[in-house]
């Protein structure tokens, strides 16, 4: 079960086209979508994983034909609707307004500099060690929420790779995106030989792809 955003390795795309890369925003509305999305991201109504999910849950045809900031806009509208922000009034929703954290200009730089680190030290002992070969689950998708957010790309499912980094325990997106808690999981960088991923057609036996993988996406030691 995948969604349209999970496109690593998908066939059929053409050449990479490079526009004028010094233009950061093509129009004023793109600037506004960007800054509104970042500002509302600090409101406490949702988190980064939830907003990623809102983007990838767009209908496939929309996901492919929308421009980057059109996707952001569609996702922002969906998040606002889902949280009933548009329809809320101070009179009817005083509790709601109390918990809302409005981003003030004076806090912008410190909040952006702090960001949202996802490392949670020492929450869980890692089962696997650097250097070990592990097999990735032929994953059915988010195990708690049917059709939910997940960060395991389709192209490594059922494949075997070697652990090259252990990053400590990190917030688990499959849980966090749906407000079911951070449930931190050991996070590894796992290196896959390209011929394991794409088959014997891949002409360079040394080339690899490295993917960051949370421990419960891993099936077993090989």
């Amino acid at each position, binding site marked *: 079960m995948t969604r349209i955003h*999970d496109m690593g*390795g*998908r066939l059929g795309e053409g050449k990479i086209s490079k*526009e004028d*890369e010094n233009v950061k925003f093509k129009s004023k509305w793109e600037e506004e979508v960007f800054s509104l999305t970042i*500002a509302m991201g600090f409101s406490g109504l949702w988190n980064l994983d939830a907003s990623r999910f809102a983007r990838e849950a767009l209908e496939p045809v929309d996901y492919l034909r929308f421009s980057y900031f059109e996707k952001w806009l*569609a996702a922002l509208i969906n998040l606002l609707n889902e949280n009933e922000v548009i329809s809320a009034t101070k009179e009817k929703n005083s509790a709601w307004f109390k918990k809302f954290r409005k981003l003030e200009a004076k*806090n912008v730089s410190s909040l952006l500099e702090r960001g949202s680190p996802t490392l949670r030290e020492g929450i869980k002992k890692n089962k696997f060690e650097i250097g070990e070969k592990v097999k990735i689950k032929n994953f059915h998708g988010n195990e708690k929420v049917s059709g939910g957010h997940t960060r395991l790309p389709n192209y490594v499912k059922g494949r075997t790779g070697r652990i090259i980094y252990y990053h400590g325990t990190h917030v688990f997106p499959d849980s966090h995106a749906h407000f079911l808690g951070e449930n931190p999981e050991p996070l590894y960088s796992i290196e896959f030989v390209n011929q394991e991923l794409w088959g014997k057609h891949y002409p360079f036996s040394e080339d690899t792809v490295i993917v960051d993988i949370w421990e419960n996406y891993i099936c077993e030691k090989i």
Partner: protein
Amino acid sequence: MEKKNNKYHNSFPLDPEARVKALKTILETKGLVEQEALDEILDTYQNKVGPINGAKLIAKAWIDSSFKNDLLEQTEKVLTELNLSGRQGEHVTVVENTSEIHNLVVCTLCSCYPWPLLGLPPSWYKSDAYRSRAVREPRKVLEEFNLLIPNSKKVRVWDSTSEMRYLVLPQQPEDSIGLSEDELVNWVTRDCMIGAGIPKRPGKFND
């Protein structure tokens, strides 16, 4: 727990300009956003944060092997000290290009990118073509950036699926050896810190 099939309305931003305007008006009227904060956000990513941040790190690493070692081994400590941490760069791993290995960074699931070090990603990095092809045929993709990787070199593609961000430490070009840190900064292009380019003598247009 079963999710409704249609949790999200799938709206087409037919006239995104009008939609954003309406949305912003609603949020402002309700007192949920303030213009000054929006301006500050834009100012940050339009004027304050950009590839120059990463370039300075690379130039310093080229001339200072102890700094290079720290940048590779204690990346987050170095970045925090230099005030180069922050949103979309909370966790960073620096990967070094060598004569044996060429590194390339992608995010196949969205467009994760080390904002505090490189600013916002270029459009090609966010394109479906790059996201789908970089992991499957990196050498063909690099050819489209005029980068021919010798058969003897290994290509390693980093797919940023977690909150870990990747910065490529390119090899210093032979003909830049001996230059000062300030001069070297101009050799380091944005693309070469993604792995989609190599450092170039300033004046050679790259990005």
